[in-house]
């Protein structure tokens, strides 16, 4: 990757961000502790359906946050990339549908991630020269084309029914689809992805990516290969989405065109926007709120109206915050700490600088 980078960029706002973020705060440890203790006090339903599902959706939305937050590219194909990984697990691995090739897990998992990353690179190469709404349109088109291919192709994708009976590997006599192992598997993957994104965002590559987001023309004039940076960003995001896709196929135990249709694609966008697109924690917060709403909204509001509740929450978050729930929290915190010290203005500048 270093070959991509011609020079060491010095980005003022980036440097501020690094300094500000590297300090671990008490609440970091509290969050980590809660995530670790949570599965031992909650019921199986909460561990898997709320906990693991949020983590998995969070990982997929994290890949979108990485592209949109640091690269300024809103790709709607991230769920599709995850779906490609899921389909690869099904096609090359073991399923009860009977058409799988039956590769062992240690071969099929890297293979699925590699193919999905390659696919993401291809999506990036296709869409990287477009900006704003056109990126959204072209990635949506790619996502829908893949959806229809999966739905109508029977020889490879098994059409409408897709594949079922897909299980994660049994390691050391542990069934990793049991609630506790599966939760910790998801948590481990989510943590790795989270810190990976944090790390990349502070690396020279990440900083130049953010600089390209802010002013692509100037970066080009400085001698950076803007296109290549963006494509590499798509590949890295693809890698993250692929990991989420592998977990999601184990979570659902099945994959079908419905898993990569328009509504899951939009769900990922909603999760990322609702949580906040500027920090890697945003997608996870968004995912938790989304999963809780999706699961329990029907208990609060009767019958066919419960989607209205989800829509209203989304609308309110977008209306009152430019950066989702995390942005809302940031604003509250700044306001609360305002009377205390002059730190506030610096903090506010830092937050502004990231935008």
């Amino acid at each position, binding site marked *: 990757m270093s070959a991509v980078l011609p020079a060491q960029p010095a980005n003022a706002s980036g440097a501020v961000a690094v300094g500000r973020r590297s300090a671990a705060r008490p609440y970091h440890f509290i969050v980590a502790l809660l995530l670790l203790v949570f599965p031992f006090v909650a019921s199986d339903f909460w561990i898997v359906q709320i906990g693991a599902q949020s983590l998995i959706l969070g990982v997929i939305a994290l890949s979108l946050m990485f592209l949109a937050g640091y690269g300024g590219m809103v790709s709607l194909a991230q769920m599709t990339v995850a779906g490609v990984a899921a389909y690869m697990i099904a096609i090359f691995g073991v399923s009860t549908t009977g058409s799988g090739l039956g590769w062992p897990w240690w071969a099929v998992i890297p293979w699925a991630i590699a193919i999905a990353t390659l696919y993401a690179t291809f999506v990036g190469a296709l869409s990287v020269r477009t900006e704003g709404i056109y990126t959204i349109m072209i990635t949506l088109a790619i996502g829908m084309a893949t959806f229809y291919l999966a739905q109508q192709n029977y020889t490879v994708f098994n059409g409408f029914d897709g594949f079922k009976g897909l299980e994660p590997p049994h390691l050391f006599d542990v069934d990793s689809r049991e609630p506790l192992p599966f939760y910790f598997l998801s948590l481990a993957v989510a943590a790795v992805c989270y810190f990976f994104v944090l790390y990349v965002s502070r690396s020279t590559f990440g900083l130049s990516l953010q600089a390209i987001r802010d002013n692509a023309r100037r970066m080009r004039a400085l001698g950076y290969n803007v296109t290549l940076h963006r494509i590499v960003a798509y590949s890295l995001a693809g890698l993250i989405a692929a990991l989420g896709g592998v977990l999601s196929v184990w979570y659902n135990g099945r994959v079908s065109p419905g898993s990569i249709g328009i509504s899951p694609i939009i769900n990922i966008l909603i999760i990322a926007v609702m949580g906040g697109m500027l920090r890697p924690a945003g997608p996870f917060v968004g995912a938790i709120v989304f999963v809780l709403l999706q699961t329990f909204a029907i208990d609060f509001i009767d019958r*066919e109206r419960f989607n209205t509740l989800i829509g209203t929450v989304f609308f309110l978050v977008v209306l009152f915050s430019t950066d989702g729930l995390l942005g809302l929290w940031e604003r509250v915190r700044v306001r609360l700490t305002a009377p205390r010290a002059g730190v506030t203005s610096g903090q506010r500048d830092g937050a502004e600088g990231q935008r």
Partner: protein
Amino acid sequence: MKHKFRRALLAAALGIGVAAAAGAGAQEIKIGALATLEGPFAVPGQDSMRGVELALSEVNYTIAGKKVNLIKGSSNANPDVAVNAARKLVEQDKVDILIGPLSGSEGLAVKDYAKTQPNTTFLNGSSAAQDTTLRDPAPNFYRFSTDGAQWMAGLGEYAYKTKGYKKVAVVAEDYSFPYTQVMGFMVPYCAAGGKVPEKFWVPLGTKDYSSVIAKLPQDVDAIYVALGGADAVNFLTQYQQGGGNKPLIGGSITTDQTVLAAKGRIRDALIGTPAAGPIADSWDNPKWKAFVAAYKKKFPDGLPSPSLFAHAYYVETKAAIAALEQVKGDLSGNQAKLRKALSSLKLDTPTGMVSLDENRNAIADMFLTEVAVGQGGTLYNKVVKVIPQVNQSMNMDKAKFLALGPVSRTNPECK
């Protein structure tokens, strides 16, 4: 922010855990109802819930002295979503009995899920894919609503012998339920001597049928159409506009009220179309008429007449109520008594007697109908014949029926 959420979440989890523990000994039966309140089948999904509510309100939400707590779940016809919703109802809300889902492929997925939850009893909703019960069934999954092949009883022979259609083309949606319907039509039709030279499978929700219409063979006598709702209206309209004039044969949800109420030239083409299904809205039978009247009274904003979805969910709920009454609400021993009662239940429904076979799939009466013009020019399904007690192997020898193989795009064939 995040730990706040976790904290709230933990508190909620603990709270719910305590509530569940407290509720376990109480005099309450929890019934979950799962239907598609979103997506392409949202209207049928709403009607399904009406069926459940109607059945429960008849007993005033009380069974064997215990209060019934009805908890609803929603999916969007996607199997992943259906299983997620089922998980929520079973594992979180701890329902004793789950009724649902609505759509064919959802049924197959929920059946697989049922195997992992041996302490809960699953009653099908209206999903009608064959292998939900025929092959590899779940021991705690019951279907009182019959499958899509059973619904076609009598139609194949009627089309060949009475209507004289020697050759038909098939246009159907591309998933498990229409596969099952096509098999139910083709097996007797082909046995009688009919030929099906071509089948066209279209994705659910297709808007443009011009390529299918252009490829329809000219030398067929009729077209068998197994499409639902908007798909049926779109296909029929475009077929008429394209100058098509072949007579039609309908699947169970092709000639329902949503299609018959459509305006324009497709009306004329629909008259005389034979179809078959588990209900017939115009059936002149006191029990059926009482059911329709009760439905209309309880749901003035509902459909003009209960759909087959409302009927299926109604029958399933009635079965749950009858079995629970029989065992006096006793759910002990992993619901062993309840399951025994369900297996041997003889249920008197608005459409006749229903009982279960050894795979826990219903044996019930079916209706052969034909579209006719009623008073004031409205179209309705006139009952041609009631076919009594159709079982899952369509009253063939079961071994022979199983030897036909699982339904698919290419099974059965008779070109």
